[in-house]
Structure formats: C-alpha cells, structure tokens
C-alpha cells in the first residue's frame, strides 16, 4: 500500500470524524464557552485553606448584582426603583431579589440577639466599664431616660438601661451605610438619594447564554425605570456585566481577526499565484486546522475559554505557512517533478518548521495559568491538523502544472538581488553599530510591568460604576483580607479579636475605615464571659450603678432585684452556630469558612476603605499572630506574573540553545544564519517596547517564545532552497510573514491587554525577522 493511495483516504476519514464531532458540538450547543476573566490567572494555590477562602470570597461576590437607583429626591428614586424591580421580578428563573424582608428584619434581630444582649457590647463601652466611675453610668442612664426623642425602641427601657446593647446594635448597623426606608434599602451620598437593589443570579455567570438573557432583562428594567422617573440615575455592578462586556468584545475581535486574516491571506495568495485554487487549498487547510483544534480541545477541556478563541483566531496567520511553503516549492520546482516526490524532498524542512512552532507555543504550557495552557494546546493541535492536511492531501490535489504563474517568483528574485547581505564591509559594520545603539537605548528604557491590575480590560463605564457603588456602600475589598485559623472555633475567634485590636489602631490612624469579621457579631466565649463579669461588677453589683440609678427613680429594693434577674437572664453565650442559623447572618456568612480540615477552623476578616498605601501596614498588622495570614490576592498574582516573567526569560534563552542544537544536527556551521535573524528581531522588539514606554510583562516574553518558533521557520525556508532558488524561499517566507504579521497585528488591536501585548510583540518581531532573514544568506 503506497502512501500516495493510503494517506489521502486516511486523512479524509480523520477530517470526517472531527467535522462530525464539530457539528455535534456546534449545533447541539454542547460546548460551554467560558468567559471568566480570572481563568487566565493561576489556579494552583498550595495552601488549601487559602484556596477555599478565596473561593468563598469569589462565590460571595460572583453571583451578585447590585443596582443603585438614584434621584435628587427619594420619591422619584422609589418610583424608578420599583419599576426596575418589577421588571426583574418577572424573571425569577434568571435572578432573585436579595433585598431582606424589611418588616421581618427588626424581629429577626431581636430573636437572634435579645437573649444574649448582656454580653454584646462595643469595645469602647467595655473600656468605659473598666475605667469609668459609678456616677458616669448613673448620669449616662439618666440622660438617656430624660432624652425627648429617643427614636422608636423595640425593647423596654429596663432591658437595656445603660444603652450598651443599643450601642452595639448601632455599631453593627454602621458596618454598612445601607438602611431600611419605607421597606426598601436606602443609601445616600449626601446629595442624591439611592434605592439599593441587590440581586442574586440563578444562572452561571460565565456562560454566554446566561449573560445575554440576564443583560436583556437589565436593559428592559433600565428603560422601565427611566420611564417611571426620567431623571433617574442607574448604576449597576456585578461580575456578570464584566463577563458580558468581555464576551461581546471577544466575539467582535474573533470576527475582526478571523475575517481580516482570511481576506488578507486570500489577497496574498492571489497576488502570488494568480489562481483561485491555491486560495481554496489554503482556506481548507486553515479550516481543518481549526476544526481539529476545536474538536480535540473540547474533548480535552470540556469547555473552551472565549479568550482561547480570540487567540486561536490569530492561528490563521501561522497555519497557512505549510501550505504556502508547499505551493511556493511547487512553483519553484517546475512541472517535471511529481508532487509526491516534491513532498519527500521538503518533508524534513516541513517537519522542522512544525517542530519549532510547537516549541514556541510550548512556552505557554510552562506557566501555571490554565487559560494559557488551553491557548497553547488549541494552537498546537491546530498547527498539527493544518500540517497533516498539507502532507496528506496537497500532493494528490496539487498537480505539477496547477500553479504555473511565476511573476511573483521573478519579482522576488529581482528584489532579493538588490537586498543587502551582511559581510565584512563598511555598510554592515555601520548597520550593526546602529542596531547596537538602538538595542542598548531600548534596554535602558525597559522596565518591568507585572501589576495584574494593568491586565484589567473592562470598559471604563463599568469600572466607574463599580467604583461609585463600592464607595457609596463602603464595600469590602475583594482582593485583600486576612485568613484566621485555629484548632477550634473559639481559638479562631480569639485570634480574630487579637487582630482586631491592631486594626482598630489603623482605623484611628485613618488607614482603614473598618472591617467585617464574624467576631464582631459573635465574640469569643472567653470575651463574652469576661464582659459578663465586668457588667456584674460595674453595674449590677450592690455597689454598682444599677442600685443607685433605681433609687434615683424612686423604686424600691425589690425592683432592683427583679431588674437584676431580668438582665442576668439575657447573658447566655452566643455561638457561631446560633448566629449562622439566624436570618440576620445572611450577609455575613461568607466570613465563616468553618471546619476546613481535621481540627482546623477558618474565618475571613474583610476590610473596608483599603488604599494602596495602607497595604504594608496591613501586612504588618497580621504578622506575629498565630494562625493569622494576610492575603493580598492582587499582590500575589502580580508576584506570580513577575516570577514567571523572569522564569520564562530563562526558558526563552534555553530554547534558543535547544533550537540551535536541533538546527546544528541538520545545518552544522550554518545554523547561526538561521537563528540570528530571529535573535536580532527579538532584541529589536524588546528595544522597541522599551523606547515606546511599554513595561515588559510576562505576555511579551511568551510572545517572544512564539516568535522564536515561527521566526526560525523563515530561516529554514531560506536554508532549504539552493541559492538560485532564493526567490522561492523569500516568496514563501514573505507570504507566511505577511499573513502572520496581519493576524497578530489584528490581535494587537485587541482590547484584552495580554492578547494585545502578544499581538504587538509578534507583529513587530515577525516583521523584523522577514526583513533580516535575507541579510543572513550565504553569498552565492
């Protein structure tokens, strides 16, 4: 069985299989397209407790959408908000309102805390109980008694005569600026009045279908709100909005890169071969490459990330290389050589170019970023499928006389004859010297840029809205918090209390505006007992403030006894479990991770009003307390990006060595001529980034890996053709390079910063390689 008979049919079978699988995925809608921006970030977290803590923080925020509807006066805001809420209420399958039941809120509160009110007090009152005189407490109670407008009370005066529980309640309420007003949640920035509408999504946030449905409802709700009150200001925040913006943009970019590249390649192919058939063949190659990548990646990953598809669109510019190379060789070989013989002749070079490209993409696999793994696998599979299509089908499909037009070839030959070749002459030295100065200058300006926040790519208006809402509602920072662990719930709470004392100092210094902690609600049993004793001594005791106060009110000894008994009844120890079972704990439950391992309990202390400047002080505050760990997610990811930027730079250097080794095996002392253009292009690109003021980041380095893989191909094209066939080499290198520059250049316009960095680096680098490759020819 000769390969000429067997291979085309074998490949046709494989293609039919992936086509079938692709159709099944596409039309059956069985492939989930993931739009989670965070998927690009490292998934690995060596510390299990930390991983769970972070997952909990994400969980608490990810499914939520907060809508603020504001107006200059409250009734207008209410009208608009009610209209908005009514529209959303009609879609209970998509999302539900998370507004608490305002009528039940007060009674829930009493039910949960009333029995424990004697042990619930603020730290300030606790200090006062230790240090203030009996007279202080008597005066305080009397002032409160005679005060004209105390506001509505749900408890009797005798239940809290010194206002300790009321102060604690006030302090808890102050953890958020949101209040209940006319059965709605209310917030204000001093000028405008806002109704706060929290919603919880019932569909996955990062699915394209879910996003579209949810966003459509919000759109209608906005219209309804504006109809109800024309001046209503509507501010929305939620992960789903960012996810939707990202996937919309990704879809647009996929189309632009895909269509732009395909048109470019068609035009280039036409210009080179003046025939429709090559265009069809190249298109088929690219299409099968994609089909294979799509189908196999889906099998491997179960779901594809939308960023993979954007990046994958740039694959068009690489996948056509093999077909172009074959066709160019076909033109150069004349029509006496059969296509199968031609293939045997160029197979080593073809294999080598595939190998080096795969090495280029493999760089992405050595990072801990799941998103990058997927991009790499997708691209590598795409290349293999495109390559196999060329090897299995082209010899049978391309007859020797199919592409006979040699205009482009002759044109290339003419150009090449005038193109300079580096040697020991004045011109070369001058060129090298100026390149050296350029490179040096560029490297002097070069600075690293690893801050993960710069990878933020959401539209400005969404970021603005998010900032407004965070500021108005004083929301805790999602990326920075403390993880507090202990071998029992009690130990964890006690450690939180130690930490909080240090944080209180930072609040006094105005480096922090507040914190959310479960121990704000449930003090450790140790603290509850200590407080109870304190109250006994300072207030309830025979010499305490209570007997004096009661005498002033003209009541007798029996009355004192009754009141003391009444208060002591309410000193039951409040436990975390009690609190978590109650409705009022709903917004705070995410703070308690509970039992995370045998003998290990964990909780989160979340922070409000964190600024960049206060991060070092916050880190120091957590240091030295057993079981307390400061977590700066943003800082950590930035550190990972920095570490991998350095690591990948070394991998890049080693890859040069490795590829030189592979080349040496075939080209011996000419190997440097193949590698040098790519190396120079790399230096030129880096220098350009420096001069242009782009901070160098991991994604630039990753692109340089790919530049190595693809740039070397062009060197190989040149080496593999005899010197009189240089035109063929340049034609194929030029066509490949132009289409690659086009694809990655379009990727460079992506609004997703990592992709933009990647595209820009590749476009500049490949452009430079193409111009440099002919300079390193051997003079005929």
């Amino acid at each position, binding site marked *: 069985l000769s390969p000429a008979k067997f291979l085309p049919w074998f490949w046709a079978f494989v293609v039919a299989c992936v086509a079938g699988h692709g159709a099944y995925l596409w039309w059956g809608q069985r492939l989930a397209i993931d739009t989670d921006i965070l998927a690009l970030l490292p998934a690995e977290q060596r510390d299990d407790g930390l991983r769970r803590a972070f997952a909990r923080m994400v969980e608490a925020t990810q499914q939520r959408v907060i809508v603020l509807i504001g107006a200059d006066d409250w009734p207008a805001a209410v009208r608009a908000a009610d209209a908005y809420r009514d529209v959303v209420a009609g879609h209970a399958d998509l999302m539900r309102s998370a507004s608490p039941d*305002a009528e039940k809120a*007060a009674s829930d509160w009493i039910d949960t805390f009333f029995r424990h009110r004697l042990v619930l007090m603020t730290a300030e009152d606790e200090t006062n109980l230790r240090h203030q005189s009996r007279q202080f407490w008597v005066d305080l109670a009397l002032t409160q008694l005679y005060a*004209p*407008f105390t506001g509505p*009370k749900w408890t*009797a*005066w005798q239940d809290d005569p010194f206002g300790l529980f009321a102060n604690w309640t006030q302090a808890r309420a102050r953890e958020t600026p949101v209040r209940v007003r006319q*059965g709605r949640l209310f917030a204000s920035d001093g000028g405008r009045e806002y109704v706060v509408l929290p919603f919880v999504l019932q569909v996955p946030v990062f699915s394209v279908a879910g996003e579209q449905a949810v966003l459509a409802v919000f759109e209608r709700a906005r219209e309804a709100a504006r109809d109800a009150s024309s001046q209503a200001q509507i501010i929305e925040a939620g992960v789903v909005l960012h996810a939707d913006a990202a996937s919309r943009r990704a879809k647009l970019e996929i189309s632009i890169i895909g269509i732009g590249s395909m048109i470019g390649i068609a035009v280039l192919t036409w210009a080179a071969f003046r025939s429709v058939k090559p265009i069809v063949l190249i298109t088929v190659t690219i299409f099968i490459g994609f089909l294979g990548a799509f189908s196999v990646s889906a099998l491997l990953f179960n779901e594809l990330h939308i960023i993979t598809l954007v990046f994958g669109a740039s694959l068009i510019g690489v996948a056509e290389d093999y077909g172009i190379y074959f066709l160019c060789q076909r033109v150069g070989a004349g029509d006496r050589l059969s296509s199968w013989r031609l293939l045997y002749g160029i197979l080593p070079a073809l294999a080598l170019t595939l190998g080096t490209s795969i090495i280029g993409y493999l760089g992405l696999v050595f990072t801990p970023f799941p998103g990058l793994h997927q991009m790499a696998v997708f691209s590598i599979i795409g290349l293999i499928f495109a390559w196999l299509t060329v090897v299995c089908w082209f010899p049978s499909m391309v007859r020797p006389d199919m592409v006979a037009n040699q205009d482009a070839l002759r044109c290339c030959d003419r150009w090449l004859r005038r193109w300079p070749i580096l040697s020991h002459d004045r011109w070369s030295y001058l060129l090298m010297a100026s390149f050296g100065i350029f490179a040096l200058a560029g490297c002097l300006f070069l600075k690293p840029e690893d801050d993960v926040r710069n990878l933020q790519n959401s539209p400005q208006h969404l970021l603005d809205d998010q900032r407004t809402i965070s500021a108005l509602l004083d929301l805790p920072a999602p990326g920075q918090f403390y993880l507090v662990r202990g071998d029992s719930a009690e130990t964890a709470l006690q450690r939180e209390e130690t930490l909080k004392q240090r944080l209180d100092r930072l609040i006094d210094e105005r480096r922090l505006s507040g914190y959310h902690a479960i121990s704000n609600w449930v003090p450790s049993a140790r603290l509850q007992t200590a407080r109870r004793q304190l109250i006994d001594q300072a207030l309830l005791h025979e010499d305490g403030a209570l007997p004096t106060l009661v005498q002033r*009110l*003209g009541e007798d000894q029996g009355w004192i006894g009754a009141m003391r008994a009444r208060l002591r009844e309410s000193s039951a120890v409040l436990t975390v479990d009690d609190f978590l079972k109650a409705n009022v704990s709903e917004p705070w439950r995410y703070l308690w991770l509970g039992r995370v391992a045998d003998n290990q309990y964990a909780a989160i202390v979340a922070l409000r009003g964190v600024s960049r400047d206060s991060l070092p002080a916050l880190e120091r505050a957590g240091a030295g307390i057993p079981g307390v760990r400061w977590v700066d997610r943003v800082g950590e990811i930035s550190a990972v990006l920095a570490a991998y930027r350095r690591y990948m730079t070394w991998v890049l250097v080693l890859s040069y060595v490795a590829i030189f080794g592979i080349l040496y095996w075939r080209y011996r002392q000419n190997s440097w001529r193949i590698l040098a253009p790519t190396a120079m292009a790399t230096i030129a690109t880096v220098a350009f980034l420096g001069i242009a003021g782009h901070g160098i980041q991991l994604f630039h380095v990753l692109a340089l890996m790919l530049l190595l893989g693809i740039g070397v191909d062009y060197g190989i094209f040149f080496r593999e053709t005899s010197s009189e066939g240089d035109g063929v080499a340049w034609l194929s290198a030029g066509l490949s390079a132009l289409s690659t520059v086009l694809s990655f250049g379009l990727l460079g316009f992506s609004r997703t910063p990592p992709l933009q960095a990647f595209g820009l680096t590749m476009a500049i680098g490949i452009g430079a390689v193409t111009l440099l490759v002919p300079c390193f020819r051997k003079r005929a």
Partner: protein
Amino acid sequence: MRLCGPGVSLLLLLNLMAPVAAGAQTEKIHALLAKPKILCGRFDQTKQLAGLKKPLLSSGRFCVVADKGILWRNLRPFASTVRLTRDEIVQMQGDRVTSRLSAKEEPTVRLMNSVLFSMLAGDFSQLEKLFTVDSSVYNDHWRATLKAREPALAKALDTIAMDGGVFVSSIAIHELNGDQTRIVFSEIQTGDRAMNDDEAALF
C-alpha cells in the same frame, strides 16, 4: 397662540392635582401656623415608662431655627443639651461635647433631624411623607394624629398626637411597648430676639 395650547392645559391639570395630594385638612393647618424663622420657648416633658411607678418630669428651653436646626436644652432635673443640625446630632454637658453622630456615619441622621424639625415647626407637608395624618381644625385651633407609614416604624410607634394654633402647643408620643412621652410648649417667642445669648453661642 395655538402652539402653546397643549402646554397650558397640562399645567392646569398639574395645578389641580397638587392640593389633593397634599391633603385638604393639613392645608388649613398650614394656613393657621405662623412659620417664623426663629422660634424659642419653654418645654415641659412628662415621660411615663412602662413598669416605672413615677413619671419622669423634666423641663427646659428649646429653639427651632429654619434652615439650621433644633437646640434642645434640658435644664431640670439636670442640665444637658442636644443640638440637631442637617448633618449631625451633638450631645453636650455644658459646653463639653459628650457624643456626636454625623450623617456620614449614620445615614438616617438627616432623615431623623428633618422629621423632628417638621414636628416642632408643624410642617405637615413633610410629615405626610412619612405618616398618615388624621387632622381636624376648630376655628383657630387644630389637632392631628400621626401614624407611621413605614411598617418597621409602625411596629414600635403607635401614634403621635399633636395640637396647636399659631404654633405647635403639644406633642404626645405613644409607643407600642407602653412608653408615653408628652411635651407641652409655652412662653413662645419669635423673631431675632427670641434666642438668648447662651443659645446663640451654642448654635
């Protein structure tokens, strides 16, 4: 002239609707009240707390200044002062501040202060936003009973009864836990001379 036709009829319609929304009775009260810029006077407060045999009696002076706020000076049985302005509630012993609550910390401060101000000034157009008002007017005297619209508030507050003529003369607050507070106002002065020097200094 034909161009402005529809516009005029729409304006008329709005004008017709406005008094209905405000409530016919409270309009009459509004007409009776003097609405001075500065109003000061004496108050006598009787507070009866559930479970306590004796009522708590206190008295002092108060001032209500439009666009500024309220000064409430308790003089007997002991001296203490509360000052409510748009953005804060300040409690003082003599001129020493013992506590301060700002609208920044507690967003409902502004709302509470505006309700109290409306109550002392008898501004029913504001009160009707939060309470249902049942009122009656006899000659130059009026009475009104307020019930909270807000369900959460209605669970604690039973009624507020007010009466008066040119000024508000008494306020009685009945809470659902049995507590009752009655404040009677007298010796009312208005105009720039109403506020004495101490009071002006405290504001």
